[in-house]
């Protein structure tokens, strides 16, 4: 694609010769901020959480700091259609590296499988958004079908093979494992020393699991369901199908090129490249961005020898 970049560069050079300041109102000065919500609820949660953020317009209030995107004064109400609860704003200590969120103990408002829930968010001066979701009925669509031992450089390791057996829901998993750090090798390439620690590995979807075992290019991991680390626990998640609309599933196939990789003019003056198509984040938040979804989870523990 280098050759295509060349063509674009040529045009850029050509066009740069005629740059002018804008003296007309092309983008309305009162460009609205958008409310962004992240809320995943589950019967297994001990605390119900929701994050409320806002977009930062480029042209009516420049120079926002990052933490100004968090909304502190929102009214966040979770409801099942009959009863409701308001989530309270909570900030964490800076050292915890956790962003502020709206919380409520699940003891005050129970979440049940198979039930519909509603979320309403009001931000003074910005607007109102709402959304609804239904908690999945059950989490029987993923089974641990195989556990065996495999010899690696670190000795014998357990291998888990998870299979999705139902297409009714979208499944995902995450887990904990032993991670090896600071590997030391001898001249022959053998590991002679290492440190280890427990780490929580990333969340993945089962979107690649097919009957023939082949993988989907949209997945992060080409061997979904096969875990080679010294896994201490695996958590399986069950979502509604709509979950696959939201990040991080909007990746490679949807947005082929990182725009800045495609066009990066020499002096990097241009933030947004000229030649990329816009990309819209999907959402189920009416009037805003983000998502409100229900899920179920179950944990599989391994007694590591």
């Amino acid at each position, binding site marked *: 694609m280098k050759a295509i970049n*060349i063509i674009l560069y040529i045009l850029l050079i050509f066009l740069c010769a005629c*740059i002018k300041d804008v003296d007309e109102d092309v983008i309305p000065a009162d460009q609205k901020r958008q409310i962004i919500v992240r809320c995943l609820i589950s019967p297994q949660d001990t605390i119900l959480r929701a994050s409320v953020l806002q977009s930062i317009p480029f042209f009516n209030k420049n120079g926002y700091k990052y933490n100004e995107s968090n909304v502190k004064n929102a009214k966040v109400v979770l409801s099942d259609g009959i009863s409701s609860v308001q989530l309270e704003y909570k900030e964490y200590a800076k050292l915890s590296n956790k962003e502020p969120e709206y919380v409520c103990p699940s003891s005050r408002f129970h979440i049940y499988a198979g039930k519909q829930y509603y979320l309403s968010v009001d931000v003074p001066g910005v607007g109102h958004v709402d959304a609804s979701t239904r908690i999945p009925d059950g989490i029987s669509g993923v089974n641990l079908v195989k556990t065996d031992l495999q010899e690696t450089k670190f000795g014998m390791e357990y291998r888990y093979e998870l299979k999705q057996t139902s297409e009714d829901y979208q499944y995902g998993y995450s887990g904990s494992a032993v991670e090896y750090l600071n590997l030391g090798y001898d001249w022959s390439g053998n590991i002679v020393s290492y440190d280890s620690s427990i780490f929580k590995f990333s969340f993945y979807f089962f979107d690649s699991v097919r009957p023939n075992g082949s993988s989907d290019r949209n997945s992060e991991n080409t061997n979904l369901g096969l875990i080679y680390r010294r896994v201490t626990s695996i958590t399986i998640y069950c979502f509604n199908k709509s979950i696959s609309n939201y990040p991080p599933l909007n990746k490679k196939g949807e947005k082929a090129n990182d725009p800045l990789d495609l066009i990066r003019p020499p002096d990097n003056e241009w933030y947004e490249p000229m030649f990329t198509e816009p990309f819209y984040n999907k959402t189920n938040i009416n009037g805003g961005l983000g998502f409100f979804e229900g899920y179920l989870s179950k944990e599989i523990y391994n007694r590591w020898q």
Partner: protein
Amino acid sequence: MLLFRLIAILFLLNSSHSCFSQEFKRITVSGQLKEASDKEYLANAYIRIPSLNIATVTNDSGFYSISFEIRDTVDILFSQTGYYTKKTRIFNSQILDVELMPDRQIMNEIVITGNDTLGVSRDVQMSKIFIPMEQARDVPSFFGEKDVIKVLQLMPGVQKGNEGSTSLYVRGGGPDQNLIMLEGMPFYNVSHLYGFLSLFNSDVLQNVELTKGAFPARYGGKLSSVIDMTMKQGNKKEFHGEGTIGLLSSKLMLEGPLWKDKCSFVIAARRSYLDIVARPFLPDTLNVVYYFYDINAKVHWDINQKNKLSLNFFNGKDKFRSNYKNEEFVNNTKLNWSNILGNLQWEYLISEKLSARLSIGASKYKLKAIQNITEDSLPSRSNYYTSVKDITFKYELEYKPAYRHFIRTGVQLIIHNFEPGVSITTDSFNVERQDKIKGIKPSEASLYIEDTYKINSRFTCNVGGRITRYNVRRQTYIKPEPRLALSYNLTKNMAVKASYAIMNQYALLLSQSIVGPPLDIWVPSTDLIKPQNSRQVALGIAKDFRNNFALTIETYYKKSSNLVDYREGVTYLNKKDIADDKGWESLVTQGRGWAYGGEFLLQKRKGKISGWIGYTLSWNWMQFDSLNLGRKYPAKYDRRHDASVVLIYKPKDRFLISASWVYSTGNAFTMPVSVASIPMVDPFYTNYQHSSTIYSTKNGLRMPSYHRLDLSAQFIKQLKKQRKRIWEVSIYNVYNKQNSYYYFMEINKEEFGSNWYPKYKLKKVVLLPIIPSISYKLSF
């Protein structure tokens, strides 16, 4: 069913009329119309019998045939705009070739008109604009480069793309939806100079006809318009030529007999010289060369009274080359795109009522880019290539059984060969990697029939249909396309018209929304990408006034389906982004569009002051399930208002001044308007977010309205030995309106760094300020 009923009614009407004409003698007069001086055939000339109130026009070869019933003798009038009308009295069937003398006075006064020879109220077809080239040359032009495509942009219902662009957006359709033909040869790319000039050299063009709707069945393969251009045949009596020197390019056209009165040629060549002009201003380390050229050629041979042969050829190329060199770094870049087309046409007059035309042609469009980089003595090479090749066979028949009928039928076969993209990269270790999107070779076979049927003195229709069989991979599409045009004369000079047409398109353009040509890529419909389809209905009135005024008002509604675009976020067909088990189709999505509006055109055809006023009120919407979150959005060139005023004033033979003013609603566009942290789905990490640009809704913003005034003055002098010279001075964008070409955000460096997010300034690119130009033309 409606169509069949209508045909049945028309048939009955015709039969009933025949019952009352038994006592008359039925005769047929046919022949060809030529220009008296150079023996060129006159297309679209008007043959009229006033006493019977019947008329016909010549075809592209100047051939006509008219049948009627008489008792005694009748006078036939032969006329063509810019020629003296000739009258002949006839009393029986005969072949009658007629030569018309040019009326220089008229030729110098007229301007672009609608179908000037027939009168807008007399032609059954609506939504058609006919442009004689003598007239197109009087309209002010960019850098003095006479460009017929830019003249078409001044007509209602036709909109330009970005400023200066030769792209045509006809009734909401994209530039790929125009069937642009030169002597029947279809073009895939019509641009020079990154789209600022069209390929078509006005010196060799004879006629240009634009059809925006009510498509006759003989045209197919594109959704929105047909631009049918014919080349001069060349002078069959003596040698002539034209040479033009302009600021951007120079051109030379020669024509003359190869065999007197039998065989003629015309050849024209044009080359730009930006490279020569810019060279002295470039630094020693940088060598940049850019130029384009094109060559048109035609040989026309009248083998005998019944057989004619013509060979047409076009080759145009744009070449860019840059060499940058310093001690550690060398960068050699080449970018070429070219069109090469040719066809052979054989016309055969089978009888006085029946003629045939066989055409065999081939075309190739290709884009090639090469980059060689040497960095720290390590060379690497990158090569990109895309092309479309076509081979076309066409056989057409024209049959005039009676003056009330004019039947055309034909078959066409096109064998396509698409190479959407081949990228070959050789790295510094001489390891070659080829990313090739597999080529596709579909075939497109069509059969059509149409009849222009004059039901009575007031009511005329053109009814027909086209059926296409398109084969690609293992998929076959068979698409019928009914066509209907109706015209009813309320008075002698006023008609109401209606039309309906279904069109299908199999060659699709993936358009880079900002750049456009040459980065657009042609791809075929496949088993996964369905052919594009449109249905258009139009209604209008046409009136011819005294003093050569003509008025047309039309409304239309067009609905398109299976329109094609890149998927969200995809910018180009890149093999790396295509999954191994999927084709390039995975980067493409399809949707629908609908456009509606009204068009107004008031023309003054002749006189010292001539010109036209055009106005379009239109809406143009699109909806793709996987774009803009599935919501409908305005098309990029959705322009509520679009107006043009053209005035040409010629007080005497030696001087001409013209002006054109255009106004249009600003382009719709999309910009990032804010930035946000978008949470990601991970129940484990609640802080899992990514910074994302939030765009306005697709095409949800508007540029300010666009307007511009162009002026031109021609100083004409007749020299000895039939020579003529023209000095033309023109000014583009006279009041220097800073029309926006594109908006972008620039980081405000002075305030960057203190905050997480930088401050931005909105900037715009203004491409074409006031541009004076001068050119010199010599005809000999």
